[in-house]
């Protein structure tokens, strides 16, 4: 199970970075999303994937005697997913506005030689 997740994480990072190098704005956005998911899986992996091992200490014992599923990484991922959701939805709206304005999906078109403003 873990080896599968490791491969998946590597694929997500690789695909995300590849997408970031493209010139299209939509691919830039997809790349950012994939990278974020890769980071989430990385944290998830570090919390030990174990089945049916809640982090509850036996009444008799003082400390954990067995391997257990660490709850902290899961809390971290939840936070990261929520934050990522908010930021990505902002990014989608921003890119749509930019698309409407410059009528192009190419990042190289983002160089209006503007001079004077606010």
């Amino acid at each position: 199970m873990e080896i599968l997740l490791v491969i998946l994480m590597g694929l997500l990072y690789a695909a995300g970075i590849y997408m970031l190098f493209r010139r299209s704005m939509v691919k830039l956005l997809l790349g950012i999303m994939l990278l974020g998911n890769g980071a989430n899986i990385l944290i998830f992996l570090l919390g030990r994937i174990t089945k049916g091992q809640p982090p509850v200490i036996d009444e008799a014992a003082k400390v954990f005697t067995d391997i257990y599923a660490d709850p902290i990484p899961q809390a971290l991922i939840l936070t990261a997913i929520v934050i990522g959701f908010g930021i990505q939805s902002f990014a989608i709206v921003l890119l749509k506005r930019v698309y409407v304005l410059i009528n192009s999906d190419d990042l190289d078109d983002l160089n209006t030689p503007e001079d004077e403003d606010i």
Partner: protein
Amino acid sequence: MINNYLILPVIAHLFTAVLLLFFWRRTVAQRIISIAGSFIVLLAAIGLFTRVWNNGILVMQAANWEAPFGITFVADVFSSSMVLLTSFAGLAVSLFSAAGVARARMQYGYFPILHFLLMGLNGAFLTGDIFNLYVWFEVIIISSFVLLTLGGRKAQLEGAVKYMALNILASTFFLTGIGMLYGITGTLNMADLAMKVPLVGHRILVDVTAIFFILGFGIKSAVFPLYFWLPSSYHTPPSAVAAIFGGLLTKVGIYALFRVFTLIFIPDDFIRTLLIILAVLTILTGSFGAIIKRNIRRMFSYLIVCHIGFMIGGLGLFSEVALMGALFYLFHDMIIKTNLFLIAGLIRQQRGTMNMEKLGGLYAEYPRLSLLIAIVLFSLIGIPPLSGFWPKIYLFEAGFMTGQYILIAAIIIGSLVTLYVVSRMWADVFWKRAPLDDTSPEDRFKRMGIGKKTLLVTPIAFLAFISLYIGLGAENITAVVQRIASEMMDTTPYIRAVLGKS
């Protein structure tokens, strides 16, 4: 000891922002509440700083969870002085915004977002938990996205795309670094990490994690290969927003670098060399960029990049004297960069342009105001008794002690280029005769009432006064940075204060 007082600078901004939401369309009320809120935060920050200075490090454990398990808030001298400087800049920007930001922007939530941004900054300075730092960074970047795009002009949105892409990328690197750090140590509390990271046997894994932190914070603070987003976005928003961004947003990245690399990863030779190389390249690219730019705000943007290098260099030298120099420069830089962008906004109000070719004759028309601005520009260059001069002495001293002559040469080049571009700007904008051009827009500043004029000039004078104090009262600032530097070199008091044991 539980000390709820230290969270006050965060809470006060939160309440101000929430209160402002209830006055969505009433811009006059918003202006008053924003200025009052910033003033209250400034008082709280002064109180926090004096308490920390007199009683040592203050710690608050959120919801009373004991240290390595809950979220900790820590105010040492470094954090509290950063909060204090942020509050000075925040008050100045609140005042300037009241007259310098268009009414339409205020009706779409400019002031609430500004206070959410300041809340995020204060939170990032005060937290003692690495994941909580990530959350505060996200609060900061989402607020800054909104401030950057508010108004929705084409140039703004284009700048925002670059700003957004690189800042989200930085956050992802930071999050990856946190994940790896948790994987190798099993804790997120910075004081606990400080104790556990040196015990890790696998040093290469620690170095790789450190690189992720350098990448993440490096993008945020515009260090050499990753600074492109800054000059291509900071010239687009209103000047009040650019002032907050230029003065404070890159500096929170520097703060995080200093915090992480003096507490958690003590730099080894590899990291030190890396930081010094990055510093030299940052200084050179920033200063060469500043030479070719003819728009005032674009030039200032490159100067930000150039001067970030001074601080990274100080961290790379990693001795007490070098840290003192870098911290002194950081304090000076936060105030001066905020002020520079406010000045750019004032010039824009007076002339309707920021292009140096089209500007001119400001000295003949506004002699007293020009003298005030001259003080700020002299401080930026570092004419001896003023604030930019003192930190460089410490940086040179530390550089000679460790034999880093290339860094010293880069700092000298950076200072000379700053002198050159600023004097050229002075000649162009203030002394040159204004070009005769019928198309030049009228002077909006002249037609303003005395109240609005005061609101525009007071923050500049206020920040100029603080810059003067940093320069002329250098003795006091030196005492502060010396104490911070010694706290950085010996972190046991910090760890003891947080974990409550020796």
